[in-house]
C-alpha cells in the first residue's frame, strides 16, 4: 500500500526532501515504517525513535497504518 511520508525541518535535510510517496507492506505499523526509514538514513542522522504523527495526530509505534495515511516524522518542536 502507499502512504505519504512528510519530513520537516532538520529531518527534511536528512532525506533531502520534505515529502515522498512510499510503498509499505499492508498491515505495517508506525514502528515498521520507522525501520524502513532507518534503512534510508545511511548516515544515522535520525534519533533512535523519532516522533511520528499519523494524519496530524501523534501516534504510538504499534499503530497500524492504512493506505493513503499521511505519516509525518516530527523533529523536536521549538515553537513559542
Amino acid at each position, binding site marked *: 500500500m502507499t502512504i505519504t511520508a512528510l519530513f520537516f525541518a532538520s529531518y527534511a*535535510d536528512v532525506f533531502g526532501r520534505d515529502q515522498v510517496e512510499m510503498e509499505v507492506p499492508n498491515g505495517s505499523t508506525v514502528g515498521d515504517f520507522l525501520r524502513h526509514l532507518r534503512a534510508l538514513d545511511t548516515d544515522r542522522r535520525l534519533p533512535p525513535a523519532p*516522533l511520528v504523527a499519523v494524519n*496530524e495526530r501523534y501516534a504510538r509505534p504499534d499503530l497500524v497504518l492504512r493506505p493513503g495515511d499521511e505519516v509525518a516524522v516530527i523533529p*523536536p518542536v*521549538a*515553537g*513559542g
Partner: protein
Amino acid sequence: MRTAIVRDPLQPSAALAEVASVANGAAIVFVGTVREVNDGRPVTGIEYSAYEGMAARELAAIAGEAAARSGTTDIVVEHRVGRLELGEASVVIAVAHAHRAEAYDASRYIIEQIKRRVPIWKREEYVDGTREWVDPTASRTEIPR
C-alpha cells in the same frame, strides 16, 4: 476562542481587545519575541516553519484544554511562521477571566503546551551567515501528551 497560524506580524493589542469583556476582571497577554542572543550566540533572525495543518489542530486543542481547565473561553492564540526579525513577536496568547489566578494559569498552560507539542520549528540565523535548526529538547522522543 480563536487560534491561528499566521504569516503577518502579530498584534498583541488586538488580541487583548478581542478577549476583553465586562464579565472579566483580569486579562493577560503573553508575547514571545525573537531574542538577539540564544545560548550565548548572537542571532540575526529566525525562520519559523510548521506542519501547518497539525500545528493549527494542536493550537486549537490546547486552547480548548485551557478553556476546560480554567472556565473561560476568552482566549486568543496566534503563532507566526516565516522569517522574523529581532524583537518581532512569534507568539501571542491573550486570556481573560473573571479572576486573575485562573487567567495566569491558563496563559501559562498554553505557552508550556505550545512548546511541548505544537509542530513548529525554528532555524536561527547567525552573524557569520550560518543557520541552524534549534533543538530545545535534545531529541526528546516521547509522545508529548
